[in-house]
């Protein structure tokens, strides 16, 4: 039922207007971003596809072993990736990885400074945190819509929406990590006459590292899930396989791609957790 006693407030229109304005007048910006990201993706995908799959599989296994020193995890990586290759999903897996990698990098490049800012500045904190709340409660699909006018269908739009979707934990946990540094330690750093930057780089960031790593881990996981959803606007990769399977009603293919996503997610998660834990102990 419509509200008749009051004219409709054009909330949606207003947002649409801003998006239109942005895509019309800032196209030089969006295009530059688009070119940069696209060449980044190409570089990674081509680079990874240059090697035969078994070389990469062995390399990933070795990296996992080196980082975690866990035989089980290395074995899981080996078997998991072999299974993906066997299911004929190697190429989409590589492009998914490339998308996740680039999205995470961009999310970190924006998220870490924002996290630091909101930890150190009360006004920034009060501004950024509610925005993050909105960003995290907004259904992920909504981010796909402005991506199309900005960047068109394809991987760049997918990365744009993925970055927005996956950035909040990086900001939040960076902020949290820095705020968790005991006040007595901050006081000690002040008492010895540290500048703001010395305090940040010599005390706050090193102590916040485990928490920041946890944030990056979450960002990676969210990026992975969003990259799959972003298949709807033309991101290729494993998500694209699932999307195709839905359209053609092919459960076999859908589940195969789904399993491949789970494998990639588990490997990434475990590796990141290990790195986080290593940082926990002083080296």
């Amino acid at each position, binding site marked *: 039922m419509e509200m008749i006693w009051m004219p409709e407030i054009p909330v949606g229109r207003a947002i649409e207007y801003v998006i239109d304005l942005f895509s019309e007048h800032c196209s030089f910006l969006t295009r530059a971003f688009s070119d940069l990201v696209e060449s980044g993706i190409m570089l990674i995908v081509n680079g990874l596809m240059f090697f035969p799959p078994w070389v990469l599989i062995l390399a990933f296994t070795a990296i996992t072993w080196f980082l975690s020193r866990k035989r089980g995890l290395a074995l899981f990586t080996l078997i998991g990736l072999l299974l993906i290759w066997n299911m004929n999903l190697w190429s989409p897996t590589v492009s998914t990885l490339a998308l996740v990698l680039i999205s995470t990098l961009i999310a970190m490049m924006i998220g870490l400074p924002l996290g630091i800012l909101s930890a150190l500045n009360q006004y920034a904190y009060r501004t950024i945190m509610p925005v993050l709340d909105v960003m995290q409660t907004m259904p992920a699909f909504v981010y796909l819509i402005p991506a199309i006018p900005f960047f068109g269908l394809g991987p760049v739009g997918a990365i744009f929406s993925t970055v927005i979707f996956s950035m909040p934990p990086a900001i939040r946990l960076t902020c949290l990590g820095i705020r968790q540094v005991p006040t007595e330690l901050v006081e000690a750093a*002040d008492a010895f006459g540290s500048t703001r930057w010395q305090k940040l780089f010599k005390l706050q960031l*090193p*102590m916040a590292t485990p928490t920041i790593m946890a944030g990056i881990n979450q960002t990676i996981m969210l990026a992975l899930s969003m990259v799959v959803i972003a298949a709807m606007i033309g991101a290729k990769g494993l998500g694209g396989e699932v999307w195709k399977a839905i359209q053609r009603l092919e459960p076999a293919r859908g589940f195969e791609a789904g399993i491949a996503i789970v494998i990639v997610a588990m490997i990434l998660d475990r590796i990141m957790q290990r790195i986080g834990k290593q940082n926990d102990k002083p080296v």
Partner: protein
Amino acid sequence: MDHKIVVQNLYKIFGNHPRKGVKLLKQGYTKDQILEKTGLGVGIADVSFHVDEGEILVIMGLSGSGKSTLVRCLNRLIEPTEGKILLEGTDITSLNKEELRQLRQKRFGMVFQHFALFPHRSVIRNIEYGLEVQKVPSSKRRERAMKALEQVGLKGWEDSYPDQLSGGMQQRVGLARALALDPDIMLMDEAFSALDPLIRRDMQDELIKLQEKMHKTIIFISHDLDEALKLGDRIILMKDGRIVQEGTAESILSNPADDYVAKFVEDVDISKVVTAESIMKNPGVVASYAHDGPRAALRKMRQAGLSSIYVQHKGRLMGIVRAEDASAALKAGEKDLKNIIVTDIQKVSPETPAYELFPLLAESSPLAVVDSEEHLMGVIIKGSLLAALAEGVQTNGNDLDAGDTGRQSN
């Protein structure tokens, strides 16, 4: 001599519009009234004192008395609301950020209650921190840090991490971190309060030993009277953000300014636990009423370096003879002590608790400790009582509030 630090009418009010709190304080409102009326927390109120070069000043009080706030105002970790802090004539409160940083880097070394070591840095890199901040070249830095580490007796532990050390060792690192800067002023905020009593005593001894060599100006915060007595050249007692008494250990113990101080002094477990017996000294020589005349008594006094001597008769304490009386009697040609013996003397039983000794000692010193047969067991002089209390004889954990976690959060 000019004072090293002079604090003049310093106020710290926590909350919005703190000036209003200062105004109310000046109108005579109390801390509680101001909190009720305005919601402002009074940290310190109209505090004035001075610190002399090379002395240890102990600021003492219960938690919430403002002592930790006060010490943080000195290097402006907490910004005072009103008042002046003069360091060799320069007003610290008027310094800009950069000048303040310079001052913190060069002049103040701070030691914290819970050590505040950086857990991600090794011991030596913790000690180097202050020098690193000053951008001292790394070889020089290492050299000075190693020297500081040696000073606190932790050589060989430089590559360990703080969590691998015991509490006492951690605080030695904390001390070394402050010493490495070679500051002329040390701010020690309940530096030993988190340590267990035995280690605490060691650290106190260590500090006294270091201070003999270094002659720093030390401002030491404590809630522990024993510690204050042992370390402090002077003691300042705080309550509700104000100074209630200032003076030497002895003057505070013997002339408490008000009930609060008296209670503070009396509440110290040690003065209840410690009895006359545990403090008394061997009386050494005594004169015999039956055999000694003034000449013998004088000789005994001269040999023992005393100005008076106790006189016993058949194993019972009869009284005391003073040197000047004895020499007068000698000149008068008297042969015995009958006319010069003072029999009206203070006697206490060995079980008398130390706090009952204070008023007696204030009236007359020395005190004689006698058993039930009136036999002289020992003597107590003012100095030995204080020394015994400061040593913390036969007691442990004699804190007023061991659970004090320092400054009230604000």
